[in-house]
């Protein structure tokens, strides 16, 4: 799927929320869904298990209307975080214009975060995509939890953000950092309109 169709004057942007199970990917989408006026959003498709974990994926289409003459649409997807849904994750990741990595800030989840980040890189590589060329933003979610339970953003960044991509601290349930993250990834993705697709890692600057 191409990001932009100049003839039809359309921008279609697929953003995938990636991360370990229960890190808050679906919460991000829920929050966005609730913020967007009804006429701008499609119905959110969410296939969840009984215990409310994402089984397949969530899909939220957003119609941003006409921007600079371009009909602009965003498609937000989440992947199932649980390890055993690897195939679905690969499918959802296909054709993504940008990836938001939602990390769980809880101290006890650190290994899951690292594993999921590795999984992301493996899946990209499997599809023949150079991970460095894919716009990526990290959200350190659940920063609202008691300080004692979580790692602070600096610590997390040292562990996960080895490419120095933009990151945000978040509380997806209440919306802190949700739109900042979306804004940040959109900005990175839209840079590709300039033709010379800029790798997210280089000179992207930190937004926190």
């Amino acid at each position, binding site marked *: 799927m191409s990001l932009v169709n100049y*003839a039809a004057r359309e921008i279609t942007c697929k953003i995938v929320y990636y991360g370990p199970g229960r890190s808050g990917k679906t919460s991000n989408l829920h929050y966005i869904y609730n*913020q*967007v006026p009804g006429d701008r959003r499609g119905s959110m498709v969410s296939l969840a298990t009984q215990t409310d974990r994402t089984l397949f994926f969530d899909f939220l289409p957003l119609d941003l209307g006409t*921007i600079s003459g371009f009909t602009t649409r965003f498609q937000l997807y989440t992947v199932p975080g649980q390890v055993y849904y690897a195939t679905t994750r690969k499918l959802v990741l296909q054709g993504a214009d940008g990836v938001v990595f939602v990390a769980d800030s809880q101290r006890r989840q650190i290994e899951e975060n690292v594993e999921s980040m590795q999984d992301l890189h493996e899946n990209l590589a499997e599809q023949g995509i150079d991970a460095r060329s894919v716009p990526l933003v990290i959200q350190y979610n659940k920063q609202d939890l*008691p300080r004692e339970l979580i790692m602070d953003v600096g610590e997390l960044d040292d562990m996960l953000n080895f490419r120095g991509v933009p990151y945000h601290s978040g509380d997806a349930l209440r919306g802190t950092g949700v739109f900042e993250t979306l804004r940040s990834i959109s900005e990175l993705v839209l840079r590709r*309109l300039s033709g010379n697709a800029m790798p997210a890692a280089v000179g992207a600057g930190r937004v926190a």
Partner: protein
Amino acid sequence: MSVLLDGRFRFDNYVVGASNRLAVAAGRAVAESPGASYNPLFIYSPSGLGKTHLIGAIGFAAKQLQPELVVEYVPLDDFVDQLHLAVSSGQSDAFKQRYQRVDLLLIDDVQFLTGRRETQSEMLRIFNSLQSSGRQIVMASDRPPSEIADVDERLVTRLAGGLIVDIGLPEYETRVAILRNKCAEREMTFATGVLEELARMPCGSVRELQGALNRLAAHEALGERPLTPGNVRAVITAGRMTPEYARPAAGASNDEFAGFLSDIAVAVAQHVEGWRVRLGERIAHWQSGGYRTAMLDRALSLTEEVDVDALDAAFAAGVARLEQLEAQAVLLDPRLAGLDVFRDPERVADAEARVEQAIAAHDPPPAPWPAFTLETLIAGKSNQLATRAAQSVLESPGSQYNPLFVHGGPGVGKTHLVHAVGNALRRRSALSGPVACVSGSQFVDELIAALQEGTVDRWRARYRAAGALIIDDVHALAGKERSQDELFYLFNALHSAGRQVVLASDRPPSEIGELEARLRSRFNGGLVVAIQPPDRALREALYARSLVDRAANAEQGVAALLAELPVSGAIEVESVVDRVIHAARASGGQITLSLVRRELNSGGAATPTSVPSVADKSFLDPEKMVLEWADLDGRIIEELR
């Protein structure tokens, strides 16, 4: 040791108010003497009001008082995972033993027991074992035991058997105290009245209160506007920290989305490159006209900037040519309007070919004379080579003998043969176009007329679209340079497209004077075959048919008698029959053998008994004789001068 028990959650940093006084008192008692007073202790409250902090504080305090105590904190989810792992790896005994060693067991999120029968029964066993040995259990949940759905009765009675306490929403004073505590912890200061104003706002939990405080801190750090009690509400509302605002009803304000939208607009405006937009506009423009824009689309995918104006001009030139061609085609056949081929500037050549076809269909080249067919051609020894070659051509036109060059003296049936081939080809449905059948002199005349009228392109197109080309008397092109030139290109076009060319001449290619070598070699490149004057058997057949055709009343053996004398070809046969019939009419009607003998012996230059020399014969041949010279006077005057 669990992170929950490392001392961050303590009683001394837990703000006690009316809403949680009972829970804290019970917790302290349990920490001081586990297993002695309230066992189990069940704490419940909506999320974000400090359950986790409280049970963490109980664990930490108990450990402080009795360091040798085994304290275990486990959220129910983890408990379930551990249990599953133990069962699947066959170590469920180790799992039981692990929990039976614990002196103080702290279990969080007990509401997740719902529907988990296996976990419930395991937990029941552990509870029985711990309680019977006087060890403490503390549980936290977001609802009281009686409201946890689908839980074993026995477990519910166990859970409810000790003390059940709830934690309510903190009242204003407690909220202020919590906020002040947090500020002290993080070394933040706010203007007087700010925290109080924040505490006055509705709030669903302590966690939300903290979130609101964070928002204020962030705002303060930005330093845009100093925080005052008056604008606290505005700042918090903008951030939508409270659940009421976090889930706005339909039609509620959507500042956050609007902000996002305006940022996207800026990013798009900033990153969309001008030349791509212009190119996109041109593509949309041409596409709306129904044109294929693959050429421009390719340019759009280049990373380097392209010269949009030049590219568009080239495209426009292609479109202009297509419009011209389409207009031309529509004049010939209105059904050709809007054909795909007229919509793709990359296929101008195809469009030109299509117009040629239309011209050929509308104004077809001369067709073979229908009277000449293979069925009426009488084959004999003298022409069998030529007729066999013609059969081969019909079996696979364009591939075996291309061109087929037939030569022979006048009247031997060349014209009949090539027209017959033309007619047979016409009947083939597989042929890609009409069969053009023209004499050499007609070809030349048409070209001259086309040159006069300036319609050479059109004239050319008629022949180019032909499925097969037949030129009789091709020697008429001798010395006509322009005609030979046209024939050369026409021949090449047809030959390369695999279309059959058949040529007839009174002499072989090598003997046609003033013929360009390139044409001569092409004529020789196929099959050159001669037709001889008819032999006796063929002559007899020709006479017999001619007499039948004219319904002449002839005596038996007349044809055989006539065939005794040689003739040049079928045409001479006809003239002999003419004379015999004429004589018969004068003498009573029937053609008798004696009449024929008399007529043959009566002499005259034209009689078969005295076969004229070649030069005289051509003078007598009605086909070759020029009876009227239209511009005779002009010629004579010219020569006189």
